[in-house]
């Protein structure tokens, strides 16, 4: 394991910087607090207070771990005080949005590859859709969908789908076009039909491209779900937890939510990778 040491070194450096940063950022408040208490205090007291401050500007890693530990083990997973409850709420709209994005993205890609008019008419819209800030789109969509009677998972999933269809369309268009002209000639010599060319040649050839896109899409889908929870005053989900954390100045809560979001994102990307390994495993030389 030659990679362990460098990774550990970087981690260690980050932790040192983090704890140092906590002293710098929390220092002024801690100083005034200690001044007010009136009793004598040492440098050791000062540092201990900086690293364990209740409403720290920058909470320390161990505070985040303790917060996560309490949240995970002091409450049942169905209790809103357990972070798993929020992770589940966000993950479900992420997955629904991801699947919708996959379907929409794939349909668009197949259309674009097979019909030239679709490419010139749709592609500019596809690209423009992503230049609009999602933070502007999200409240509008949620209000409109809410008016139509859709609340809960659906509006959030739509935001996820809005973000995730894009990498899928782009990746799949590239993948479906990635074939050697020789392979197309070969299919022609067999008098293969259009659908045979698609299922036996274009689609399998595009899978490596598709999976790369899917990894981007699933991560961005999670971002979409969290963003969608912010403007709605949602009561559940990682976004809601971030929001209440910032309302009440609970920086530890924000940080622990962030850690869970990162872990969730890693798990989703890993799951896509696992599906990839199971489906297109041996088709390439190990690199």
């Amino acid at each position, binding site marked *: 394991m030659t990679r362990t040491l460098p990774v550990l070194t970087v981690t260690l450096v980050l932790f040192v910087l983090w704890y140092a940063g906590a002293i710098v950022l929390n220092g002024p408040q801690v100083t005034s607090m200690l001044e007010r208490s009136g009793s004598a205090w040492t440098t050791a007291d000062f540092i201990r207070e900086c690293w364990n401050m209740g409403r720290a500007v920058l909470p320390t890693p161990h505070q985040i771990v303790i917060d996560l530990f309490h949240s995970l083990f002091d409450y049942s997973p169905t209790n809103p005080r357990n972070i798993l409850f929020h992770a589940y709420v966000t993950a479900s709209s992420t997955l629904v949005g991801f699947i919708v994005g996959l379907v929409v993205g794939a349909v668009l890609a197949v259309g674009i590859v097979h019909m030239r008019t679709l490419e010139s008419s749709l592609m500019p819209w596809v690209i423009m859709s992503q230049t609009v800030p999602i933070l502007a789109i999200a409240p509008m969509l949620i209000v409109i969908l809410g008016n139509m009677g859709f609340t809960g998972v659906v509006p959030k999933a739509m935001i996820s789908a809005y973000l995730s269809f894009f990498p899928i369309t782009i990746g799949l268009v590239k993948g479906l076009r990635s074939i*050697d002209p*020789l*392979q197309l*000639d*070969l*299919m*022609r*010599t*067999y*008098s*293969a039909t259009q659908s*045979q060319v698609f299922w*036996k*040649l274009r689609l*399998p*050839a595009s*899978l490596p491209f598709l999976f790369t896109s899917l990894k981007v899409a699933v991560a961005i889908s999670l971002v979409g779900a969290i963003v969608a929870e912010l403007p709605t005053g949602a009561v559940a989900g990682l976004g809601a937890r971030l929001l209440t954390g910032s309302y009440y100045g609970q920086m530890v809560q924000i940080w622990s939510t962030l850690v869970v979001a990162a872990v969730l994102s890693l798990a989703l990307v890993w799951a896509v990778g696992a599906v990839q390994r199971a489906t*297109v495993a*041996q*088709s*390439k*030389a190990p690199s």
Partner: protein
Amino acid sequence: MESPSNAHGQISSIVDIQNLSLTFQAADKPVVALDNISLQIKAGDFVSLIGPSGCGKTTLLRAIADLERPTGGSLKINGKTPEEARLSRAYGYVFQAPALYPWRTVERNVMLPLEIIGLDKAERARRTAEQLDLVGLKGFEKKFPWQLSGGMQQRVSIARALSFAPELLLMDEPFGALDEITRDHLNLQLAELWRRTGKTCVFVTHSISEAVFLSTRIVVMSPRPGRILDIIDCDLPRERGLEIRETAQFAEIAARVRHGLKEGHSYDD
């Protein structure tokens, strides 16, 4: 089996090309790739098309395969147009590169055309085993293309072209990218395969000795525009070993091919 005789009982050509021409519309000016080509290929023949780069030999092969559309003259395969012949799967085509699907095993690559034709599973398995045996790749069924050498990959490609039992085998410099030792080996195997199956073969090559070794007839072509300079009968015995290349008769035919190429200014700067 299609009979090589026509309704009048005469021996007819499996490929009949009359005054064929083909012009590509390039951006600046049209390029004449084939000019007034006439050629008859009889059933069971092994015909090599030889000439320098740009002489249209690949274009001619692609026209036979309905991968290019001629702009003049007539081209019939068993009395049918190239398109009808393609739709009836009259030929198997071997490209310069093996063009195997990297995500399919050797076995499933050979099965590809059989799946497209719509044969049932048992028949597909039977034919695939038969073809892999014929090209000497028994035991490699479950390997992926990247696990094979270049020569073996090209043999898979030949097995794939033969799997649906076409009458005609079209090969476009199939061994062009291989080293000489592998090429010799595959030439021997191809000669043996041709003798055993009796397929009609059209073979594009750059190599004089390859053409003489494999063919019953050699078509010498010249570039710009692509024309036939000479058609040489190559009446070496059908059963050939590599040592035949040392004989005087072989040298004589090779000399005639070289002479033809020289006439076509193939060696000029």
